[in-house]
């Protein structure tokens, strides 16, 4: 029996940037980008579910993000996660990877013991690959990054194949350990229809608060209780639940700042036009030979 925690993230779909997403000042209009489940995190969830299928245990998915990140937690439930946690607070906004790893590591300590933490290698919005190792360091546990394959899990150890520069290595590590996986490690399973029917109504604290808004007949506490009794409450951890150090969260806890962003400007039209004819190409080759670029 193994208990896994999976770190998941909702990201803007940077792979599908279209014209109206880029603004005139060169910044990105995030609201115009669809929010998606970071694919490598989905692969991480798949690996955790495979371990549960083989050896038994539990899978808990957690995300730090704004209230709408509940969307991907519902997807985790559809795939087979046993428990999900939304870690959300306005004070967490603007966090860089250091502040994020602080909040995540404190949340993990609160959630309980584990054998594995899985995460995608990196998220497509920043491509930093930093939050996993930063979280492992804060929890004082070992890590295996760039995992391509789980070879075996036995006697309290995991053996994994990981990518290295120019090749691969096989690593054995005692549990607990944090692993980050690359996209080819596994194909995420599709949603189970029955689970979709069951969990599409799952709601986080913020979503329940929204339901209550403007309806004097409802109370948040009563509604949370009701959702909990039907196993449809997405457990929600805020600043107060985690007893965090405010100066280490969000913008305050983030040493890195974006100083400026520029869209990639092309100084187009400065190239010399060469006719695609033998004469045109011949002149170009002459020029390149003269400049000793071709010999």
């Amino acid at each position: 029996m193994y208990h896994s925690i999976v770190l998941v993230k909702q990201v803007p779909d940077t792979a599908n940037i279209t014209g109206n997403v880029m603004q005139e000042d060169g910044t990105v209009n995030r609201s115009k980008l669809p929010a998606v489940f970071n694919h490598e995190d989905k692969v991480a969830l798949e690996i955790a579910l495979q371990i549960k299928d083989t050896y038994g245990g539990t899978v808990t998915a957690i995300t730090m993000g704004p209230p709408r990140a509940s969307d991907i937690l519902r997807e985790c439930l559809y795939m087979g996660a046993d428990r999900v946690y939304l870690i959300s607070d306005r004070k967490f906004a603007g966090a860089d990877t250091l502040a994020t790893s602080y909040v995540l590591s404190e949340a993990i300590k609160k959630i309980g013991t584990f054998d594995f933490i899985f995460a995608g290698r990196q998220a497509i919005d920043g491509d930093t690959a930093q939050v996993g190792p930063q979280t492992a360091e804060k929890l004082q546990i070992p890590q295996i990054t760039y995992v391509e394959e789980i070879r075996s899990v036995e006697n309290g150890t995991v053996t994994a194949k990981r990518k290295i520069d120019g090749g691969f290595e096989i690593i054995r590590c005692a549990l607990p350990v944090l692993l980050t996986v690359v996209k080819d490690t596994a194909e995420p399973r599709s949603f189970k229809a029955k689970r979709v029917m069951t969990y599409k109504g799952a709601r986080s604290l913020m979503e329940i608060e929204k339901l209550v808004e403007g309806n004097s007949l409802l109370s948040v506490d009563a509604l949370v209780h009701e959702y909990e009794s039907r196993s449809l409450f997405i457990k929600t951890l805020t600043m107060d639940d985690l007893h965090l150090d405010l100066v280490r969260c969000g913008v305050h806890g983030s040493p890195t700042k974006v100083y400026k962003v520029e869209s990639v400007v092309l100084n187009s039209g400065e190239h010399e036009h060469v006719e695609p004819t033998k004469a045109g190409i011949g002149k170009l080759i002459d020029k390149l030979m003269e400049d000793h670029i071709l010999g």
Partner: protein
Amino acid sequence: MDSERTIPAVSNDVWVFVEQRSGKAADVSFELLCKSHKLAQVMGGAVKSVVIGHQVKELAEETFRYGADEALLIDHPGLKQYRTLPYSRTLINLVRQFNPRIVLFGATIIGRDLAPRVASATRSGLTADCTDLQIADISYLRKEYKQLLLQIRPAFGGNIIATIITPDNPIQMATVREGVMEMHAQESSRKGTLTSIPYIPDELDEVVAIIEQHREENHVNLKAAPIIVSGGYGLRSKENFKLIHELAHVLGGEVAGSRAAVDAGFIPHERQVGQTGVTVRPKLYIAVGISGAIQHRAGMQESNKIIAINTDPDAPIFGISHYGIVGDAMEVLPRFIEVYKNKLK
């Protein structure tokens, strides 16, 4: 640590983690030392190389030629191969002890495994995958900052270039992509100070064991090629891609491709130029059937001369080219090969 000793709160030193495999340094480490030499001159600080391994004293001394003023050498049999825990613990202790102003790592798998742990433990700012570094005095949120490290990197899938700063933190850390900084050795007589640091193994290190390791030497050396002929998805098939090979052969150059060409199976990944491939700066880069997405341009725009061949006159690749040929590669390439062969006669 001797508590009587006064330790400067902040130094102006620039550190480079020197990544080595079997005692041989990664190119990116030397590239970073050369860059650090320039940064440290502006800041009035020293460049220190951090060399961790076993029997790597010679390598530590080699770093002087690339700009290191001092080498911090941690040499122990337990450090022969890179392992996360002993390496990160060693570096964390050094950073805590000496307070460098800047710590740089290659954005390799090792660098991206190690740097976040060091930054996390020392609560330093860390920026991933930089493509340029500068020192500048800037004003940010109505405060003036002297000699901050500008960490420049593509963001949002390469659609924007972001400049990241670490304004209020004593230590600025960054990983830097391979091949984007220039590397040149100085005269071999350049000397520096070699400082050996003792290493104390920890039993916790043994929870992780490397069972086996396979590494293939990369036979393709695109970075060193003076001429590169590179094909994209516009070639449409592996069969058509043969013309790329032929032109490269005739010109005495290397064959490369865009990510789309690699994904389509026209060419192996080891020959991919661009953000997720190799960064090159040859004398001549011929881009054939490559539209010129930012991810590709990031890997080749520093080339001395660029020729673009594309059917689409509005392809972004023309924007960074010196010579543009609008036409079908299947007609232009055979013509190019024929005309060039005739010139050689």
